[in-house]
């Protein structure tokens, strides 16, 4: 630059070159601040000052651009961080808190809040908020309702003059609110607000919309997860109940005789029984026992209701009958006594129908009493079928003191008894027709003089053919007893 030009700092201290002769002095500025001076001949000074000011302006632009890029970089980073955080969260409260924290790092706010709607059309509830005083958005917020309905984000920079009267529900100056849209559904709203006068911009709105998208997806995930947890819990509870029912059914079956023939040394009678439980635990039961060498007791019954209570009531009833019968009482005395015990131990509104018969295996005399149970059949050796349809009494466990009347039939050798529960006659097919007393009677006749086990097998086959795969709704219980030898008259 020779001796025609020089550069000074802002204070006038020479930094470079020198000048002489006619002089000119021009400033070099950077963002409004004078960095220094160019001095020298007017033409050289003007050229160099223009060049240096151009460089300064370029640097200013570069800095502004770098600042803008850094701002965007920070936004992208925070949104990425939010995305990562939200993916790992399955709790609604944690999702809301995390979303508000990150949103507040990007958008200045004194208050923030998230309301969600767990089911379409359901009520809104707050899952997260920050800021002093009451939560930013009440669940009944008209702004939130409006955002939800329109599905579009909104800025209100002067709540006090908003025509919807937002001032009454919000104690802030400006608010920015966006819908939380997941797939086709809006699951809630997110809002940030300021109590100072700083307005929100469309850039803020765009940013909040981006955060809202991430948040909505995380909220939907959390809701789905919650539903799945509930479903698993329900399934686990169902499995536990099913296990209890299975246990109850096992107990129920263990309470009735299972070994046949029950008295292998006794050739003077033949007997078989079977019980097929419905899916739910039912209350059917049967029993038989020798009171002495000449007297065989047989019992069949059905407790009202199903499930574990019915099974327990059945167990009590069966035990009471056997205990009382073994005292040698007549069937009517026995059922009278058992009824009294059950009424006094009354459990809810449960009761049991029951038939108790006492066979003198030597004479063929069969004494019995029927407490409201299906009347048994006698299949004579001749093929004739008789229903033992005599009066007995009311079912056990209902009212105390009612009389029970006994009956008697005489069995001849090869005559058979058939006892059953209503699960047999009322078994239904897919057209919901009953197997019926008539079909049962025909089946018993058809079984003729077969051994007792075969009679029950035959009837079971008939039942299965009739029901044709329709679900079994009640326990099916049958007992068959045949007198084999010629009895000896009592005299």
């Amino acid at each position, binding site marked *: 630059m020779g001796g025609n030009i020089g550069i000074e700092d802002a204070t006038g201290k020479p930094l470079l070159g020198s000048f002489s002769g006619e002089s000119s002095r021009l400033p070099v500025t950077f963002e409004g601040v004078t960095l220094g001076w160019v001095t020298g001949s007017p033409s050289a000074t003007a050229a160099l000052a223009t060049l240096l000011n151009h460089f300064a302006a370029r640097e200013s632009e570069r800095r502004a651009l770098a600042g803008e*890029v*850094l701002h965007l*970089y*920070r936004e992208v*980073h925070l949104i*990425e961080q939010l995305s990562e955080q939200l993916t790992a969260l399955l709790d609604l409260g944690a999702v809301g808190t995390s979303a508000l924290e990150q949103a507040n790092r990007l958008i200045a706010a004194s208050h923030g809040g998230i309301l969600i709607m767990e089911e379409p059309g359901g009520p809104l509830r707050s899952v997260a908020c920050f800021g002093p005083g009451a939560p930013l958005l009440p669940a009944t917020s008209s702004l939130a309702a409006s955002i939800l309905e329109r599905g579009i984000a909104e800025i209100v920079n002067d709540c006090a003059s908003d025509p919807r009267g937002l001032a009454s529900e919000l104690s802030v100056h400006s608010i920015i609110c966006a819908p939380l849209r997941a797939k086709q559904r809006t699951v809630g709203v997110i809002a940030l607000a300021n109590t100072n006068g700083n307005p929100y911009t469309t850039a803020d709105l765009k940013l909040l919309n981006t955060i809202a998208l991430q948040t909505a997806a995380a909220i939907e995930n959390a809701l789905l997860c919650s539903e799945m947890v509930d479903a698993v819990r329900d399934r686990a509870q169902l499995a536990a109940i099913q296990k209890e029912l299975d246990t109850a059914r096992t107990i129920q079956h263990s309470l009735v005789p299972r070994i046949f023939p029950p008295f292998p040394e006794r050739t003077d009678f033949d007997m078989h029984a079977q019980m097929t439980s419905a899916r739910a635990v039912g209350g059917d039961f049967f029993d038989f026992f020798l009171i002495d060498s000449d007297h065989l007791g047989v019992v069949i019954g059905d407790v009202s209701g199903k499930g574990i209570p019915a099974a327990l009531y059945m167990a009590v009833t069966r035990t009471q009958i056997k205990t009382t019968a073994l005292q040698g009482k007549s069937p009517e005395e026995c059922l009278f006594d058992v009824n009294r015990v059950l009424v006094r131990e009354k459990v809810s509104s449960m009761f049991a129908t029951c038939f108790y018969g006492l066979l003198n295996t030597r004479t063929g005399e069969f004494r019995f009493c029927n407490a409201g149970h299906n009347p048994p059949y006698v299949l004579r050796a001749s093929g004739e079928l008789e229903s033992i349809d005599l009066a007995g009494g009311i079912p056990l466990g209902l009212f105390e003191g009612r009389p029970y009347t006994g009956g008697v039939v005489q069995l001849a050798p090869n005559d058979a008894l058939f006892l059953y529960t209503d699960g047999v006659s009322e078994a239904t097919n897919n057209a919901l027709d009953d197997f019926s007393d008539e079909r049962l009677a025909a089946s018993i006749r058809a079984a003729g003089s077969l051994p007792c086990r075969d009679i029950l097998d035959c009837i079971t086959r008939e039942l299965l053919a009739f029901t044709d795969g329709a679900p079994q709704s009640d326990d099916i219980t049958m007992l068959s007893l045949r007198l084999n030898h010629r009895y000896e008259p009592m005299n």
Partner: protein
Amino acid sequence: MKKILIVDDEPHLRMLIQQTLEELEDDGVELLTASNGEEALETIREQQPNLVFLDVMMPKKNGFDVCNSVKNELGMGHIHIILLTAKGQEFDRQRGQEVGADLYMTKPFDPDALLEKARSVLGL
């Protein structure tokens, strides 16, 4: 005067880190830059910065080699070195430890965390 050296072969990342740390200039911190490993070593020898943000994957000399030279060969163990490694690229932590790096951070970096770390190292 405290000095920070920013070493990255990608100009836009150098610019971003510089912009992030710009406010430290008000505290009298000088920001220096280098665009490869060799240039970084030369600047470190001449300027002896207090803190170096050092990219790992660079041409000529990678970050591990630069760090190893500074910490173990040039006797400048007092210079705080933070390795910068791209997220998603497998980073050999053990190697970073062996060459004496003080810390490593992932890119894309969190500007606030980067600034906070620089302040903490420089005691500002």
